[in-house]
């Protein structure tokens, strides 16, 4: 007698950008795959918060790049990480 089963590995996706953060459309694309399978409120809130945080970081990265390109190096220190 035997039974099936085993250790399985999921598939990751890689997303990259050039000289900018993610756009809202790109963030939405990334979020959909994960959100569709969430069936409880607390996990949904946690994942959404994570994506919103990433969106903020992407925008901060865009701002940091604009400041650098225009010579406002000192201002970058006030943006934080």
């Amino acid at each position, binding site marked *: 007698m035997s039974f099936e089963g085993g250790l399985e590995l999921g598939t990751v*996706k*890689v997303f990259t950008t050039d000289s900018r*953060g*993610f756009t809202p459309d790109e963030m939405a694309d*990334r979020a959909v*795959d*994960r959100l569709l399978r*969430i069936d409880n409120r607390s*996990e949904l809130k946690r994942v959404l918060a994570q994506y919103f945080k990433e969106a903020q970081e992407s925008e901060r*990265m865009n701002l940091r790049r604009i400041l650098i390109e225009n010579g406002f190096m000192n201002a970058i220190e006030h943006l934080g990480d």
Partner: protein
Amino acid sequence: MAITQAMATSFKVEILDGIHNFGTGVIRASTAADVFKIALYTSSATLSASTTAYTTTDEVSSSGTNYTAGGKTLTISQVPTSSSTTAYLDFDDITWDSATITANGALIYNSSQSNKAVAVLAFGGDKTSTAGNFTIQFPAAAASTAILRIA
């Protein structure tokens, strides 16, 4: 009444929790979860099921910017759990920002256990960010998709 041969689903979860120890020489000084990291590699790297531990050989650190050797620490977003008879866990997505990176794959490893290898991820080709985001998105935390599953 009937007897159905099976591996207990609770056991599968407990394997991921580190509850059972069939080997020798494993010392657990803490009840906290181990620290798992992910490192990126170029296409020159040789990584496979035979990989036993993290290595700096062909890691992207030598060519990338805003990438530190050893990679990043993963956040366990779903502690080991089960659905039907499958145990699984999940990690949060990970991003290197303002980074210039070209990577062909990654290694998940356990930095709490001598950097022992957990899983090799092949991206299917070179992925490049230029002064931008390099993000690895983990699959949905579900029995049929999660990154690490015991079915």
